[in-house]
């Protein structure tokens, strides 16, 4: 049976060093939830607190209505997949998968049925009598997953499970993981530092930095309306430009890099006269203006043709470097040294206060709550 997880004011200290202070989080029943952040942001620490391997210095952890702070890790009914798989090297694939069931003192024939079912489900039935050292990384990963799921856990925890695989296998395995999770419908907490992987598998993502959750939302929310500058730069690529917001005749305008002025209709009312803001323009949100339309003046430095898209690297008058992505056209690309004028897709760009701590464009959805 799947449960929801709720964490209230979690505190984690390493000696005198507080790495997580007062973190709260709600994970819904049956959802695929990802903790995403750069290394050292506390995501694995948090996962291990849920698993019971790290001590909890403060706050409450609930599985459903059950407070688990002091529950023995062996009794939390968790399935866990480790970064290095942690397959028992002295047991066959089948014994690895059966290990958890044997500890639960389930009758033998029942164990056999369950083990075979999961071996089939993870497509490793043909390797059932092999020793782990004779398996590839991807196969070991499947064993680890089967072993974690066969005990019918309330929660599945995965700590960077794909980081030891090569790029192609990683893509393959992440669809396999997503598919299994959909099929079984188990509440899953997944830890990764790879934002593309997070986007590909998750229902919702919590972006963490320095022990603090920055933004919780769907992949689409995070990409299109990031809650702050950190999320904007961590999820996908973006160009950060300086700007200011001013109002005239009841209309709100955004001036980018002191020269290019746009009328904006989605700036939050409290922020309609900011002297200094940060503007996040993703490479695909630039438009290269035709026919001398007004825009940001720039000079093309380099151009990379990647098939579907063409990337331009350019610098503005202020010397700031920007990246622009255009859908590749059949006619020739713009040569180096060409002066261009850049417009932006103004309904897509995001504007942050000077500190970068808040997105001042409307439409931000953040489940973190304020």
């Amino acid at each position, binding site marked *: 049976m799947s449960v929801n997880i709720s964490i209230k004011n979690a505190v984690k200290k390493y000696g005198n060093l507080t790495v997580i202070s007062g973190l709260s989080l709600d994970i819904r029943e049956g959802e695929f939830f990802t903790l995403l952040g750069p290394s050292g942001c506390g995501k694995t620490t948090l996962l291990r607190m849920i698993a019971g391997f790290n001590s909890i210095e403060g706050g409450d952890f609930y599985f459903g209505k059950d407070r688990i702070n002091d529950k023995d890790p*062996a009794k939390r009914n968790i399935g866990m997949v*480790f970064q290095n798989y942690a397959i028992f090297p002295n047991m066959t694939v089948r014994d690895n998968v059966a290990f958890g069931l044997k500890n639960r003192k389930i009758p033998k024939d029942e164990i056999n049925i369950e083990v075979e079912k999961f071996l089939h489900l993870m497509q490793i039935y043909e390797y059932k009598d092999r020793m782990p050292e004779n398996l590839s990384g991807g196969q070991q990963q499947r064993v680890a997953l089967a072993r974690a799921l066969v005990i019918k856990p309330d929660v599945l925890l995965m700590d960077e499970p794909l980081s030891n695989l090569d790029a192609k296998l990683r893509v393959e395995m992440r669809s396999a993981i997503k598919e299994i999770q959909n099929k079984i419908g188990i509440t899953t907490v997944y830890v990764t530092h790879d934002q593309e992987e997070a986007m590909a598998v998750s229902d919702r993502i919590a972006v963490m930095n320095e022990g603090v959750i920055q933004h919780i939302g769907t992949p689409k929310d995070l990409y299109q309306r990031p809650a702050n500058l950190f999320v904007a730069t961590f999820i996908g690529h973006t160009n950060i430009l300086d700007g200011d917001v001013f109002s005239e005749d009841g209309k709100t305008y955004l001036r980018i890099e002191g020269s290019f002025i746009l009328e904006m209709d989605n700036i939050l009312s409290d922020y309609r006269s900011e002297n200094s803001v940060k503007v996040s323009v993703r490479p695909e949100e630039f438009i290269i203006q035709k026919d001398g339309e007004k825009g940001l003046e720039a000079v093309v430095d380099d151009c990379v043709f990647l098939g579907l898209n063409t990337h331009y690297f350019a610098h503005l008058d202020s010397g700031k470097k920007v990246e622009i992505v255009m859908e590749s056209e059949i006619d020739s690309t713009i040569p180096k040294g060409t002066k261009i004028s850049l417009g932006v897709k103004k309904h897509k760009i995001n504007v942050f206060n000077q500190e970068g701590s808040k997105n001042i464009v409307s439409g931000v959805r953040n489940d973190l709550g304020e």
Partner: protein
Amino acid sequence: MKKQVISDGRVKPKKDIWTVVSIAVLCLFGLFMIYPLAMLLKNAVVNQENKFTLEHFFKFFSKSYYFGTIANSFKVSLSATILALLLGIPLAYFFNMYEIKGAKALQVIIILSSMSAPFIGAYSWILLLGRNGLITNLVKNLTGIKLPNIYGFGGIMLVLCLQLYPLVFLYVSGALKNLDSTLLEASENMGCSGAKRFFKLVIPLCMPTIIAASLMVFMRAFADFGTPLFIGEGYRTFPVEIYNSFMSETGGDTHFACAVAIIGIVITTVIFLFQRYVNGKYKFTMNALHPIKSKKIHGIKSVLVHAFCYLVVFIAYAPQMYVIYTSFKNTSGKLFTSGYSLKSYTDAFSKLQNAIPNTFLIGGSALIMIIILSVLIAYLVVRRSNGINKTIDVLSMIPYVIPGAVVGISLVIAFNKKPMVLVGTATIMIIALIIRRCSYTIRSSVATLQQIPISIEEAAISLGCSKMKAFFKVTIPMMSNGIISGALLSWIAIITELSSGVILYNYRTTTLTIQIYTYVSRGNYGIAAAMATILTVMTVVTLIIFMVFSKDKKITF
């Protein structure tokens, strides 16, 4: 160098069965190691009337008769170390750089020559170069020249160097295996090759290892007791002095012997600490992505290299082969006569009485205790790091610095009166062996456990195992390789142990090595040779088992 200690944030283990284990292990160390050493110290600083005095130390340092033994020990150990380096380093270099024909077999022999009891080496050199030795007589008969005396400084140095060069060989080979061949290529590319490259690049890169190996060799040579006892004659070294002042037939002076033992411990401790310091300071990590591939060599170079390798290995092992050979010779009384027979063996077996069962019984019990202790200590040190267990870790290294004779003396002093009278029992022999030889297995178990990621245990726990069950069902099976290979090395060291046993044994608890020692000292060479051959066979069998079990075939000391 100060390390910042940050806890790893793991759940602090509760007080459970492991806490009891910690305390039990600590008590054992306290009772059988610290208490005897404390008694040793106490006896060293009191006189017959039990009053505090430093007279024994004054006596030692004021008389060159005693003090000279330290100088002698230093001289002979230093020369043996230098010679061992001169043999071991080129040998390791040739083995790794060039294709040597029969390299595998040679390597096994090199390891074997380091594994036999040093005093057997001494005894076999006496058979060859002694007053009535094979070569001495041969040369005398052929040319009339009397060869220089093997007894004394030269003999001790020869035996110790041939006994200990394999350590240098194994250490330096290990370092060379971590040397990336691109480094050699880069150096060649910049015009530095051959001998120049060996001295300018290879030696400096291996320097930390060479220093570690030399200190190790020095320490072993310094603490060795059997070799100088047999071949030293008038040349008195320090460990023999400890033994003599304790066991002297004219009523040994226990207090003086204790003082000498304390001086011995201080010296070996200083060397040990110096080694650790050097190790920590000059260690740099090398990791070879492209290990050196041994090259084919031709012509005169090939002949010279092969000649060197074979000659060294042959000289080091030939005396032992000769012992085996003599064990099959006919004897009459104590003398060898012409012709061959198994007479020595039948005599040996009739005289051995319970020495072989004792070797297995005493050695076996010691080994089992060592294995249990090692596994428990490894777990405590690696997985349960706290104050008590850090203390245990440090205590487990003390045996490295106590010479065997000192272990023997301190146990006799501690357990020869009520409430615990152990002197003369098999128990005290077992305890001595455990103290002497547990370090190998503890170190290899700790190293193995450190390589097993803790997530394996966590996986077992998250699948519903208790901590204890996870340890026994998952961790121990994974450690078994490391434990077994460590235990086999301990076993070889146990069956060849002499120095502590010779102080502690009585007629009921004699072991094979003690019997060999007895018969060699009585001049009964035929029987001694047969017994030594039995011991060699036991060592070889153990080594073969070790080779099968140990995956990387690496021998650590």
